């Protein structure tokens, strides 16, 4: 079984509709790629988010790749990127 691909979402501590949509998107991706993703959500004020520096939430990372910042990606396009990363892990 290959290592699951990490999907990391950094969200604003409160009141961010785009962050809410990105959380929903993450759930959708977990359904599309069962057992292949390791999804984590961090609040931007969480120390775990410090390593990313100055960010505009929502920040969505696929593996070590910043897929979106401050915007909600299209679900199908995100799935395409995930497929690509799963096919050729860095």
């Amino acid at each position: 079984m290959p290592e699951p691909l990490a999907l990391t979402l950094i969200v604003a501590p409160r009141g961010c509709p785009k962050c809410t949509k990105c959380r929903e998107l993450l759930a959708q991706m977990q359904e599309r790629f069962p057992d292949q993703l390791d999804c984590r959500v961090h609040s931007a004020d969480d120390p775990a988010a410090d390593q990313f520096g100055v960010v505009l939430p929502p920040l969505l990372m696929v593996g070590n790749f910043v897929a979106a910042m401050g915007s909600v990606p299209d679900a199908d396009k995100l799935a395409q990127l995930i497929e690509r990363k799963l096919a050729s892990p860095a």
Partner: protein
Amino acid sequence: MTIYLDHNATTPLRREVWDAMTAVEFGDPQRANASSVHRLGLGTRRHLTNARETVAAALGAQPADIIFTGGGSEAINLAIKGTAWGRTSRTAHHFISTVIEHHAVLHALDWLQTQGHAVTLCPVDITGRLDPQAVAEAITPDTLLVSLMLVNNEVGTIQPVAEVGAICRERGVLLHVDAVQGVGKLPVNVEELQCDLLSLSAHKIQGPQGVGALVVRPGTPLCSLVHGGPQEGKLRAGTENIAGVVGLAEALRLAEAEREATLARWRELREILYRVPRELDAVRVNSHPDLTLPNCVNMTFMYCDGMALTMNLSMRGICVSTSSACTAGDLKPSHVLKAMGLSDMAAHGALRISMGRQTTAEEVTTTVETLKEIVTDLRLVTKPGDIGKCKDDCPCFVTGPRPTAPAA
């Protein structure tokens, strides 16, 4: 591995500069206060005098014209607020600048407006170039000072400063040149530029941070921002930063000695960077094609977010900037790119790549290849259906007027 391509933000300190600074700071005899009259004070004063002579010689000025400051922003503030407060005419209260200046200039002018001064900001064309005629038309009988940058920090475009200098001289208006990005990289001579004030900073030329200078033409009415002791011709009170000014002088001396060779190398390396718009769709070079300092290329990657691009590059060890460092925590689109007529979308997709003296062809090639990979992946997520169809004249790139063709 780290590839540093953010030299317009700051440059690494040169070893030779550090050696010169430490020789003063930890040398024998010990460093004292340059204003002290004892033997150690006089020795320290000699370092200050030598540094002043070196900086003056590099800029075609006299040593007495050099006022050392705590950096470029302070020098700029001294030039702008100092002329406002030092003016000899009660009616001269009008300032002229451009829309693409550094915030040190724009915010100083904003503040002067709150104090009753009038400000006119001239527009620039799509490459970030000012038309000197715009300055000539903006000058009124009340105009006191024109402030113009020599090289834009975000796009690298070189401004027609000497032409503006001639206009200002003829009309009896003071000219301040923000040469922070130009000194040590381009030939700078205050007589040839016909300027009255010129600001520079050490850390842009591999000198220490927190040191700069203002060149003041004799007879320019100027009031100090910091009152106290008689240091720096009574224009900047406070005990001098001796190691800092020695570092500035040494950095400038070295940069001047190597300037032509460095410029030639940057031109070669820039050709590698120019592969990006040729090999990727929907990439636009925002800098002027010719009249640009060759260490800097500003490019818009349509359908990409510049911050996401910068972050991905950073995670691969490549440090570039989305915009000027001073606005890196501020996610509004760059005021420079907006003023050049780029749309919000185009401005948000811009990257500034600025090379330094020690940048190698291998580093630039790696950056180009990495950029291509990242942009391709980012566009998987963000690209609309019409990617690749956009050309430079696509309306999505710019919202402002297109540049008019030069007269035949």
